[in-house]
């Protein structure tokens, strides 16, 4: 019951609408954008996969420093290569939509920030996160002392069980207290 040649069946449309936070219009628009990314021969396949190289050419993701992580997190491929099917794409859009719950957003944010995929945010993950945030230009990057201080502050504030890493519950606890987590 995946995507047939180039049309979405009515049944799958209403099913997707029930399972995600997107409206029917948004799902149809997503389908249009997704099929634009497919090559000619892939358009006939059901459940075609688009490799990560083509996904990150989308204008919404092009300048985003987290684009590779986003593709990795939402991908359901066996080889863990970051390729997305249409349903993965819908998952992505649903998590970033305005009507998604805080829990969904924080869950996926945690996975995106967890660069080594071990289920917790440790010092290396936090360092990579801050470097992504501040960009590549040298004058905005934090020096190593500032980085150490920042990481120790973050761990002090959010690590409740004092095990040196931030796990999902602690992350969600910090996020729930921050009203600006709107994206």
């Amino acid at each position: 019951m995946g995507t047939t040649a180039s049309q979405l069946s009515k049944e799958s449309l209403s099913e997707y609408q029930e399972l995600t936070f997107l409206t029917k219009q948004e799902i149809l628009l997503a389908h249009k954008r997704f099929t634009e990314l497919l090559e000619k021969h892939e358009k006939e396949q059901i459940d075609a996969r688009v490799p990560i190289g083509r996904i990150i050419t989308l204008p919404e993701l092009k300048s985003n420093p987290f684009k590779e992580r986003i593709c990795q997190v939402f991908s359901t491929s066996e080889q863990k290569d970051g390729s997305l099917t249409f349903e993965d794409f819908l998952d992505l859009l649903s998590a970033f939509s305005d009507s998604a719950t805080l829990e969904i957003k924080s869950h996926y944010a945690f996975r995106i920030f967890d660069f080594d995929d071990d289920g917790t945010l440790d010092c290396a993950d936090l360092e990579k996160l801050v470097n992504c945030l501040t960009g590549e230009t040298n004058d905005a990057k934090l020096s190593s002392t500032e980085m150490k201080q920042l990481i120790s502050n973050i761990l002090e504030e959010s690590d409740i069980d004092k095990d040196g890493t931030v796990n999902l519950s602690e992350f969600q606890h910090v996020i729930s207290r921050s009203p600006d987590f709107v994206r």
Partner: protein
Amino acid sequence: MSEIIVVDPISAGRNRGAIISQYCNKTLKLRRRRQTRPSIRDFSPSSRPSIRSYGMEGDTTDAEVSKRERLVNNLQNLPVSDRVRMLRGMPLSVAEKKEIRHVARSHRFFLMQKEKRILSNKKLSCCSQLKYYIIIVSYPFWYSWLSFLHSLQPWQTLLKRVSGRFGTGVLSYFLFLKTLVFFNVFLFLVTGAFLVLPQAVHPPYRDTTSFSGLELLTGAGSFSHTVMYYGYYANYTLPRRSRDEGGGQNASTLTSDSQQFSYNMPLAYFFTIGMAFFITCIILVYSMSKTFGRSFRINKSNSILTMKTFSCWDFKVIKKKSVQIMSENIGTQLKELLAELTQKHTKSTFCKRFCRLMVHGVAWTICIASTTGCMAGVYYFSEFIHKVRLDGLSSPAKLLSLPTVVSVINLLLPALFNLVGWMETYESPSVFAYVAIGRNLMLKMSMLGVLCFHWLGRVCWEDFVGQELYRFLLMDFIFTLLDTLFGELLWRLFSEKVLKRKRKPVFDIARNVLDLIYGQTLAWLGVLFSPVLPVVQILKLFLVFYIKMSSVMLNCQAPRKPYRASQMTTIFITLLCIPSLLGASVCVTYTMWSITPSTSCGPFRTLDTMFKAGKHWMEILEKDNPSLSVLSKAHTYFVENPFFLFVGAGIFLIVIYFHSQVVDGQRKIISLLQDQIQNEGEDKKFLINRLQSVHKQKQDAGKRLKSQVSHLYNHQHF
């Protein structure tokens, strides 16, 4: 021998089994909550909360299948809306959710078939059959109606472009504008349906003044004898029985001998305005409490750094240059925060603090003095203009002079406040933003207060006030146009060509939002005197939207200062509610309650106050149906009795006190729970260490035994 790894259910960030079991528990709790209260006996008396609610769960793979079955079982027993909500909220991929949903549905279908077979033996009443059919048929319609509503959202693409380049801060300004448009549309629908339409269908007299273009500017002239203003409205019931073509002064309500539809105009006028304000107030208070609830934090902790790191990235921004600017901003902010934290410990000396206080005092004195000076100036000028008008020398220029003066003051004085603010030093930029907003607000409210005071008590003053407010709205719009033109377009050209700087001007969000709130206050003040004013306001807001949008895209750049979008939205909605709507309601209520309406125009011509229209109607109703007298007695006894108001206010205060105590208690519980989690973490580490050391001991003992045995064996052989 491998080490024992204990999987902690709390730290399994992406383990699917953990997610499924977590949602299993959630659905169970939801089911229980819907049906009965969970009894305390269900929980085993354990001192460790984590074990109590999770049960002993190991995350092995074959347990996942049984867990999924349990989840499906729980899901299908929930009502449909809850089920959909649960499924949506699960952080699993769409493919997995589809599977779960399919299984749940087929189970439910099977159960329903079973139920149907059982029930078809007892004759299913046609009511519940009908209910089933309605539910089955209406779902697709409900979904398509929802998507249609969503597609009606105006300006979607434009807003996306703005947020893509400038981020959530500038977007919040345009969203605020959209909210104001909706409020005005609602107001217009109400007044249009109940006031303008009936009166337009039954015009009381014909007017012969011709239309010249100046009416659009001044609002007077041929406009003053149309539905636009208060004076046109009849003070009798429509349609009129006795034809009296001179603009009659008939005060009787001719309900008794009208066979067709009769419409009591004064009553309609009074109730429509009252209801419109009341409903707007309720909507505004509700949205204010919602946004306040979102931004209120129970625990005023100092985890600013963490929150900044985790939540500052604005995923709506997609243009490369903007993304670069945002990264630079974040880097600078983090550095500033770190520097602040290290410097917090240096205490400023007494002398420094005293100097700072002096500077603040001087700044505030300047602001208050300039505001008072402007208030006095506006008052005397308006008296002067009024005398000139009474002498009959009113030309459009003279009519527009007062609004122009007020708009110029509104434009120049905030610039003065900004200058004054530069010489002060504040602890943080957000405090500076709040102080600036406070000063601007004080200026605008005092301007409006002086004008309100000046307008009351003239001949057919309601018409005059309506016209003045129309002129004020118009001037406000013209000055917004000029400000956009000069402030943004010309400044950009000037800085590019003359100063040769690359920097474009920054869009000042707070000032623009305050301008919007000021315009809306004028509209609310004026709706009593000019029921068509919401239309003018809607047109003005539409034009402002497109002008500001194009100006922002062409001339401005993304703001450099950090912008706390949700907190600012709360503040804007609060400002819209408390000074703006409340002030307008107080003025309108005061006018309705105690001011004598003018005797020559309008629907309340012969009454002492507008409020008497309502009372008059109640008396007539009472005469006709004596059983309704209990209502009026209740009204006299409760609403007009000060004792009851005291008691009501006392109860209200008690409820507030109670709630604040609950919040305090919850704060204490949060800190206790945090300590508990910390202790459990330490317990866990201790237990793991012990387990490992015991395991190692066993291993060592085993090794020693083996070596001893082999040693013995070797010995035996020799």
